[in-house]
């Protein structure tokens, strides 16, 4: 009886397992009989030009089986006289790769394997290629030439101002109003609030703000007024303290200087805004200066300043924030005016000469825009080869590779 039960159990087990095993066997056969993938074609390798060496660029045309019947690509590399070794696994669809692990002046050969479940098909290997470094990046030659023209014109006008030539610089309303704003705060017996933006000293806008602070704090020291400067970066705090201290020293009032004029608040953007808003509402400064890099906080600050009736002067190089300042402040330094401020306020002819030099850059930009617009319009309208040529020339002058 026991043997019979075991026999029946075995029969049942076989009934269910044999078809499954058969199915597995069929699958394996199918896998083994699946065709190998088509190889990639047109594999090329070349030195990455105008760099400091150590880079080789590879490109190829995808396998004909990509993406349906491949699982990926494998990149192999061989030094001269050595065997190929795998250096990277790449996803289907990849057509280029930059090898940044090569040594200069050593010849390398490459090949790419196309992989699927059936196996791997290797491409032809590339000719030997060597990575080299170049002294100068010729892709940026046009930028260098433009920079030299602008810098040259700045230096020319500086030299020209040094020799005593009178230069006309248009009046900048926001900067003309600085002294008046400080004077108003002095008369009202209220402090001046100076906000240098929320970026660190490695941002040129903050640097520009600190240069303006030097001039403002000098007037503050002369008028015996009070300046408050909450900052969001520690380095800005140390620089600003040094600047204000020097201004007080120059004004002959070192005793009036106090380290607490500049306070670190927080690096957190909206925490900083909350702290400044609190200071504004409690201290009610008569003058608020927002000069530097601002983001979403620009309008929150300027509107709070407006609500307490402060005279407000703002300046930033961020076009996205300028409309907010224009809407809420009395004066706004737009873009370049922020950077021109220190030269403008110094009244030093040499520095004013540098402002005049910028105009040459503007003339080049205006001529480029005008010619480009005309060339593009005529090129599209009449397809005249001269205008196509002009467009190519303008592209090579103003666009970097």
């Amino acid at each position, binding site marked *: 009886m026991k043997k019979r039960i075991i026999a029946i159990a075995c029969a049942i087990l076989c009934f269910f397992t044999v078809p499954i095993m058969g199915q597995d066997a069929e699958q394996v056969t199918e896998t083994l009989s699946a065709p190998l993938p088509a190889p990639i074609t047109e594999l090329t390798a070349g030195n990455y030009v*105008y*760099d*400091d060496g150590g880079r080789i660029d590879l490109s190829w045309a995808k396998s004909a089986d990509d993406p349906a019947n491949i699982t990926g690509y494998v990149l192999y590399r061989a030094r001269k006289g050595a065997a190929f070794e795998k250096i990277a696994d790449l996803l289907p669809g990849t057509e280029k790769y930059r090898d940044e692990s090569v040594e200069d002046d050593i010849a390398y050969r490459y090949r790419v394997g196309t992989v699927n479940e059936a196996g791997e098909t290797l491409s032809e290997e590339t000719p030997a290629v060597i990575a080299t*470094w170049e002294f*100068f990046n010729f892709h*940026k030659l046009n*930028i*260098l030439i433009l920079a030299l023209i*602008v*810098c040259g014109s*700045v230096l020319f006008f*500086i030299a020209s101002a040094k020799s005593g030539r009178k230069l006309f610089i248009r009046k900048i309303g926001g900067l003309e109003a600085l002294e008046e704003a400080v004077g108003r705060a002095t008369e009202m017996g209220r402090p001046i609030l100076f906000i240098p933006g929320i970026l*660190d*000293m*490695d941002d*040129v806008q903050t*640097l*520009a703000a600190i*240069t*303006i602070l*030097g001039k403002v704090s000098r007037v503050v020291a002369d008028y015996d007024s009070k300046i408050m400067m909450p900052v969001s*970066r*520690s*380095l800005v*705090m*140390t620089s600003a303290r*040094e*600047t204000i201290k020097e201004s007080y020293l120059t004004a002959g009032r070192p005793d009036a200087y106090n380290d607490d004029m500049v306070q*670190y608040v*927080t690096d957190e953007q*909206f*925490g900083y*805004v*909350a702290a400044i808003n*609190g200071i504004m509402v*409690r201290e009610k400064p008569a003058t608020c200066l927002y000069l530097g890099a601002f983001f*979403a906080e620009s*309008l*929150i600050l300027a509107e709070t300043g407006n609500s307490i009736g402060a005279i407000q002067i703002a300046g930033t*190089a961020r*076009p996205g924030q*300028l*409309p907010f300042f224009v*809407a809420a402040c009395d004066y706004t330094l*737009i*873009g*370049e*005016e922020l*950077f*021109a401020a*220190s*030269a403008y306020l*110094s009244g*030093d002819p*040499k520095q004013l000469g540098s*402002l005049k030099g*910028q105009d040459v*850059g*503007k003339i080049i*930009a205006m001529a480029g825009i005008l010619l480009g617009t005309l060339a593009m319009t005529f090129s599209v309208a009449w397809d005249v080869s001269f205008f196509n040529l002009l467009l190519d020339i303008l592209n090579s002058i103003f666009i970097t590779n």
Partner: protein
Amino acid sequence: MKRLIPVFITAIVGSVLVLSVFFPKAETMGEDFSLFFDIIAVFAFFLGGGNLVRVHFSKVYRKRPDWGFSIVTLLAFAVTLVCGLFKIGNEAVTISSSVTAEGTYLQTIFLNVIAPLSSTMYALLAFFVASASYRAFRAKNREATILLIAAFIILLGRTPLGMYLTGWIPESFSIFQIPNLAVWIMNGPNLAGQRAILIGVGLGVVAMSLRLILGMDRTYLGSDNE
């Protein structure tokens, strides 16, 4: 001498950073200088933290006006610092374990205190936009009237109402449909104005950099005087 050394450092670093754009071998030097700045900024953070504690401690000690806020500031600073420094809540407290890992107290503070407070401040912007728009868009002169009309078109163009009002305009005059007009204002006059500002900014940065590299402008050191 106090002025000469910083001016010399500015000139060298500025020149190398400019050269690193054009000479590939100098690229890494430019990156190194940026790293130096980060290292200095980290050390300067101690100065900032120290200043924060000193100012608020002094305010509490002398019982100056609103000294209660200073207690909140000092407490928040201390709790956050301790939670972050000792990675409280993170079971694997090693030097490389994450400060903001799942379950750490610092992460809890960030998610439940800092993030909502920041969002609240950011939300205030909506009310400020309304009050600033009211002032800016009052048609008190020709420029303000143009601004008002442009803003009105853009606001309408960004809502279904714009298409509802002007959808009947034939395809050959589709530029006069409000949504298309809004796109034209943003991509035409608005973009041109922004680019003009950016060109001016670029040239301003060049001139200012030259003044700093040549040592003509030393205001950032505190004074123009040698």
